[in-house]
């Protein structure tokens, strides 16, 4: 498995996006593409060609699972690993998300100082 450098990050909440961006770019040293919605992510994803996609679960319009579903339809993105970021971390919920094709579930609220480590371990 190749090392992760390019991350597509989808989060509707602007402040969280900013914190995560700082944590992943400044602390983690990743190349990050932030999107405010599932729709935006679908438009940008193919061109950005990410190594990993981080998806917020609860979003207005397209939520995390439906965005994942849509991305799986795009051949270039079909094999890119996806991790959900959510507050719903009960074992059954995690199982459900994994059944949708997610590689990992990252609990919210996340620790910005260790987020990059978590992502790297995926």
């Amino acid at each position, binding site marked *: 498995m190749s090392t992760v450098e390019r991350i597509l990050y989808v989060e509707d909440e602007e402040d*969280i996006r900013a*914190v*995560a961006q700082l944590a992943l770019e400044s602390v983690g040293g990743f190349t990050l593409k932030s999107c405010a919605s599932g729709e935006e992510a679908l438009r940008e994803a193919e061109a950005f060609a990410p190594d990993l996609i981080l998806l917020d679960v*609860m979003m207005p319009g397209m939520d995390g699972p439906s965005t994942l579903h849509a991305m799986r339809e795009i051949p270039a993105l079909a094999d890119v690993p996806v991790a959900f970021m959510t507050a719903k971390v*009960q074992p059954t919920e995690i199982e459900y998300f994994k059944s949708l094709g997610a590689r990992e579930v990252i609990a*919210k*609220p*996340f620790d*910005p*100082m260790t987020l990059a480590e978590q992502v790297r371990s995926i």
Partner: protein
Amino acid sequence: MQLPPIPHDESQRLRALHELNLLDSEAEERFDRLTRLARQTFGVPIALVSLVDEQRQWFKSRQGLDACETGRDVSFCAHAILGDDLFEVCDASQDPRFADNPLVTGGPQIRFYAGAPLITAEGHGIGTLCIIDTRPHQLSSDERRALRDLADLVMLEIEQADYRQETRGLRSARQLTEAISSAQVQFIREASPRLAFDDLLTDVLDLTVSEYGFIGEVLRSRDGAPYLKTHAITNIAWNAETRAFYEANAPTGMEFHNLDTLFGAALRGEKPVIANDPYHDPRRGGLPEGHPALNAFVGIPIHHGDELVAMLGLANRPGGYDENLLAFLQPLLVTIGQLVAAARAQQQHREDQRLLRRLSRVASEATNGVVITDVDGRVEWINEGFTRLSGYTLKEIAGRRPGDLLQGAETDPETVARMHSALGRDEGFEVDVVNYHRAGTPYWVRIQCSPLEDEQGRLQGFMAIESDISETKRATHALQASETRLRGLFELSPIGIALNDYETGEFVDLNQALLQPTGYRREEFVSLSYWDVTPKEYEPQEMQQLESLEKTGRYGPFEKEYIRKDGSRYPVLLNGMVVFDNTGRKLIWSIIEDISERKRIERMKSEFISTVSHELRTPLTSISGSLGLVMGGAAGSLPDKAREMLEIAHNNSRRLGLLINDLLDMEKLVAGKMHFALEVQPLQSLLEQAVRDNQSYADHFGVDLELEPTDNEVQVNVDASRLQQVLANLLSNAAKFSPEGGKIMLSASGGKEVVRISVADQGPGIPEEFRDRIFQKFSQADASDTRQKPGTGLGLAISRELVEHMAGNIGFESVPGEGATFYVELPLARESHQG
């Protein structure tokens, strides 16, 4: 020999003879001198005064003969008395009537006989003066005249004797009077008239020379036939049986009902019956074997006024009874009549007195009112009870109809109509009705009225008994009012209430609130079986509740669902208890609360908490994240002061995050949304994990955390992460409350069924006042604003929920000042640890 014919007036003749009382009497000089004179005059050896009775001739006076009597069949005199004229036989041996007569053929060798009949004033020949010779002879006409004269002299003497008889009659009359007055005196003096009658009977028997007799009262049996009850009767018992009968019955009076007898004939005919030849009397009834001979009988019915009241029976007077005797006894008969009537009146009086005494006692002791009215319903008499009840005295109400005074506005007109209609038909009635006291106050009475009839069944009036039932009515009304109130409550209750039979489960009663959510109509619902409205999956819980009901008489609170008519379900909360109705029937009262609304609100509340928590977490993620980055040096180095402030902010944002997590956990637990992945696993490794996870937290407080070695074999069936959550909570609490340098002991001890995991600290212990609510949400021992120890106050509440979801329980032991030991008890897993 020719037998002497019987005279045509034989019976009168005999009675006349007997009445003379000469038979078998002593010889008397006044007759003897006449027979001596006759013998002398006619120069014959024998002269006699002969009296002829039924069987014989008896000589009142005799000259020249030793025998005092001979048979009537051989008697010459029996022939002589057939006519009025002198009877003369000149030579008996030549006379075909007497030639073979033993008195002719043998001694005294009679040849000549001449007898002058002795004829009474009534013309009955009773005997003769006769002369007898052993040689044939014939009287001259002078001699015949002389014999006739002498016979007349004898007759004179007899009549003389009869005169004396008359004086004896006077004596008898005096005796009679004495008997009467003595009986009267005794009757007046004696408590019982029986002794008076006994003495009277004895006197009457003496007076009439009777052998036995009775004095009886004439009574009438139910069919009107007269019968006799003795007041006095001679004891003629002739064997043990009759003696016993006499002794048993004579004192109270013997009863004779058979009227086909001599006395019966007298009773029926109400006229005296004289039977001087009872054996040949067609009226005789026959006597029982052994009964003393009855030779003559008289039965005399006795009237008092126009009524036949008594009877006197006498028997065996020598010579029988006749009208004269009856006439003689008349005053006595009157007396007997009076005495019997008096005895009867006395008896009646005594009975009346007894009845009256009894009735007066009843009437005076009765608290009930008693009214007696005439046929028209007008008051004739009232008792004190009635006055007490109504306020009216007899004087005020006599002659009036009670209803006119007693009924008023509240009196039910229908009831009054019913009373009137019953009276109109001459019938009784029983009603409850409002009456008014003289003072105007109403009261309830129960009136039991019955017609009064005389012996012939003719209506005499009415008697009413009135009982005050005001209290009963008041109680009834109060009960009704109370029932109405309770019924109202029952029907108005917003909560469903049902009454079921304990045995059959069928509905006895239920209210609208129970029906309303079901969609069933009442009649539909009551016909349903229990399982028509209860989902099958509740059966185990139902059984558990039923058990509780049997053991304790109560069940619930118990949540389950009901199935509506349309098949949908709604949640209900049940409570119930066993009751018994007044017949002893076992019933269950159930309160069935439709908790749909409560459930909806709870759901809304938890959804709200869930939503709010999520919404809070989003900004908190940014805040914590930002602060974390700054603190982590991502934005470059900070001045010390700023760093200190940001540290505080960062800690509190983390604490807020924990609180939100706890709230969400709690909500999930309560809503049953938390999933438990139960797995049988060794306890030891779980405890080791807990020590590892919490070591740093303990270090932070400067507290030593130790694990006591545990039996490796112990296995529990738990969700590992949930148990870790519980242990983390207990261990962090212990650390927080331990003094610096203190020690926390984590240990496990096993029993047969459960294992107990203990967390013991050396802290201040749990204050008494906090123990009750230590497991409640948001409870902390120190609820003041200046809380010393951080925490959400949800930790123990969540821990308890978690433990209970894993079939365990949580608790603590603590002595204030000596630390606290919290424990979790979990059931031992039965599965093999090798599995």
